[in-house]
């Protein structure tokens, strides 16, 4: 049974065409996944179908849902679809749920007001029970874990009885284990309905199966069944995308033996009187990479900060006293947050150069090595992409001739291709300079391919 037919959907900003015409069909029980990086136009496509395009953008084409036709150029008309025929899963459920309303009420109000069903409270309770959320009914969203919030939002979005589910980047910023939860949830959405998913996550796309559309620069460059696209990609971009999956990265060559830089014995960190993780020990030599893995909140960042000397710790932590004072540097998870937001990148570098009397001539070759255009330095951090910012952060650290780099989930906010490139540059430069790296990530595959040794933290 065909649930939705979208024909020649395109998006314009004035005379600029941002998304070239795309057609897709959602069938009962089938998944359609749009795969692409940020800026590929995949989210605009979904918004055009839903009628939620931002001001200034216009959609065109035709949309047929269960026999009724809608015009994406007149998005007001699409409003009747929301909740009743199309369930829209929010990107970040913990922000999308009303923090001041109890969980069950947020589901019940949809039964009541949208579906006009009798006994909304009973139905809502049943929905929650079906998702294993019995305990969440009386709680506020901020009292729930991220996974529970995700399921609650799923229940609320689908309580209106919609057969079609649209999910825009449902795994954005999630840990690997949480990603599996989302996958299970979306599979549930497939039972008795259709699913349109927008993502950059290959694992998710693989798990959902069905049809995959690969988008780049506003155009669908390749489409076909999931099994074929993921195993035998035709288009170069699709191939690059698949190669960028850490699971497909080449295995790391171990470095030559070097003197020890950091040695930890029975080290742990406490926050607000609570010990974060079981004491760990390791020894890290120059040129080596130590991968740290563990669930969120287990103290991965705190351990790294303790090595940097930013946090107090318990146990014994030896750092090579011969290492220069500023030789311990760090890369942050959220690149824009690591720069002063209101001054240009160049200004920040100039201040650093002036402070430590660094030879200015060193900047140009580094820019070149990191494939950065010098014009980037005239911009504010907000005007530069995440991948470029992370490389500028690396450049900033390299000016101080570091012997140690703490990379705290440095690529978790980056697109797959950018992630692959950034990590490659980082490891190459570390090898060139005999720099030790502590690499924190929630992506086990990534850590396997970059680390010489792995350390898994577990909560106390």
């Amino acid at each position, binding site marked *: 049974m065909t649930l939705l037919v979208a024909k020649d959907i395109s998006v314009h900003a004035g005379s600029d065409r941002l998304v070239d015409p795309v057609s897709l069909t959602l069938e009962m029980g089938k998944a359609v996944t749009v795969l692409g990086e940020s800026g590929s136009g995949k989210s605009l496509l979904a918004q055009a179908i*839903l009628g939620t395009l931002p001001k200034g953008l216009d959609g065109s084409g035709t949309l047929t849902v269960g026999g009724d036709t809608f015009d994406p150029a007149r998005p007001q008309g699409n409003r009747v679809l*929301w*909740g009743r025929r199309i369930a829209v899963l*929010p990107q970040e459920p913990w922000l999308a749920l009303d*923090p001041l*309303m109890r969980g069950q009420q947020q589901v019940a109000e*949809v039964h009541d007001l*949208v579906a006009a069903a009798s006994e909304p409270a009973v139905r809502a309770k049943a929905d929650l029970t079906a998702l294993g959320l019995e305990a969440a009914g009386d709680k*506020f969203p901020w009292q729930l874990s991220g996974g529970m919030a995700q399921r609650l*939002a799923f229940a609320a979005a689908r309580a209106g009885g919609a057969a079609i589910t649209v999910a825009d980047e449902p795994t954005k910023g999630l840990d690997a284990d949480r990603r599996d939860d989302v996958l299970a949830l979306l599979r549930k959405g497939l039972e008795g309905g259709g699913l349109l998913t927008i993502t950059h996550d290959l694992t998710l796309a693989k798990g959902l199966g069905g049809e995959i559309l690969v988008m780049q620069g506003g155009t669908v460059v390749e489409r076909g069944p999931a099994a074929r696209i993921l195993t035998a990609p035709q288009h170069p971009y699709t191939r690059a995308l698949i190669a960028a999956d850490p699971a497909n990265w080449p295995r790391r060559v171990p470095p030559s033996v070097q003197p020890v830089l950091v040695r930890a014995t029975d080290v742990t960190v406490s926050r607000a009187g609570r010990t974060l993780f079981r004491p760990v020990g390791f020894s890290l030599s120059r040129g080596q990479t130590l991968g740290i893995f563990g669930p969120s909140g287990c103290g991965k960042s705190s351990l790294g900060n303790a090595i940097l000397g930013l946090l107090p710790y318990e146990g014994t932590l030896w750092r090579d006293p011969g290492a220069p004072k500023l030789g311990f540097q760090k890369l942050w998870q959220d690149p824009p947050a690591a720069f002063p937001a209101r001054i240009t990148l160049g200004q920040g570098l100039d201040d650093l150069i002036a402070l430590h009397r660094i030879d200015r001539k060193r900047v140009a070759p580094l820019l070149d090595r990191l494939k950065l255009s010098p014009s980037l330095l005239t911009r504010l951090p907000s005007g530069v992409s995440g991948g470029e910012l992370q490389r500028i952060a690396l450049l900033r650290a390299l000016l101080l001739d570091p012997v140690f780099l703490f990379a705290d989930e440095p690529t978790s906010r980056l697109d797959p291709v950018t992630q692959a490139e950034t990590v490659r540059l980082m490891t190459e430069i570390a090898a060139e300079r005999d720099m030790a790296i502590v690499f924190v990530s929630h992506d086990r595959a990534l850590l396997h391919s970059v680390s010489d040794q792995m350390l898994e933290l577990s909560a106390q």
Partner: protein
Amino acid sequence: MNTALNTIAFRLMQAAGVALVVGVMSFLMMQAMPGDMAFRIAAARYGYDLVNADLANAVRAELGLDAGPVTQFLHWMGGLARLDLGQSLVSGQPVWDEITHQLGASLQLALAAIVLSLLIGPPLGICAGLHAGGRFDRALLVVAASFRAVPQFLLGLLLIILLAVQMRLLPAAGHGSLAHFVLPALTLALGLAAASARITRDAMAGVAASPLYAFARAKGLSDGEVLRRHGLRNIGAPVVTYLGLQFVLLVEGVVVVETIFGWPGIGHALIHAVFHRDVPMVQGTALVMGLGFVLLNAIIDLIVRRIDPRGVQS
């Protein structure tokens, strides 16, 4: 959860801080005041036609003003410990009685103004916030700024001339009946409504642009339902917090309106007390108003905690 206890403990600390600051400031004031206190009090008691050196000396003897500031300070602090604010040096009445009368009148007026402004300001703010950047929003910004910029006495006079003198609908000035509330309360309420419209507008615009609002719409709720069920709930905390602060500013800010409308108020009393060197009145008024501020804040904390159980955001 002992956050409620924490709040109470913090407010108690603040109350103690207020008492201490009032005490120290009064002490400094007594030290630093130029002019002869006995003369000032005599002038306040007997009027400018009668004040003279004999009366001043009599006042000095009666009140023991030769005792020196330290003794008087300790005396007052001692009284405070016994929950006794003392007597007004001018009228001889207990300070507490005068404050109850005058603060009561100010509170009544402030409350009436707040209620009136609530009927005007927040609805406009919600309309503007829902369509942030729109024509109505931009117009409201200018109109609200204008109302805040109109000198209160001018607004008051215009209202008197229009509603009392020309139309004879309401009494021009005075105190005692319900009708007397309308004009001064309206004068205050217009400026206040302008301010609360702005705050509501900002809160509403923030909520309307938030993912929770988009999700509520995506769930299939109509615009009215989204506003009633999610919008109002989420702008509640900042608006209530702001209103509380506004109330405090109002109670002391009504001086101008008080003099225009012949209203017995605390601002008026405070001015008189400072000018007449009625130290117990100054201390008592400052203390009661300060503690009232603390109490009000505590109440707002509790209300906001009910609306938004996540805890008070500053």
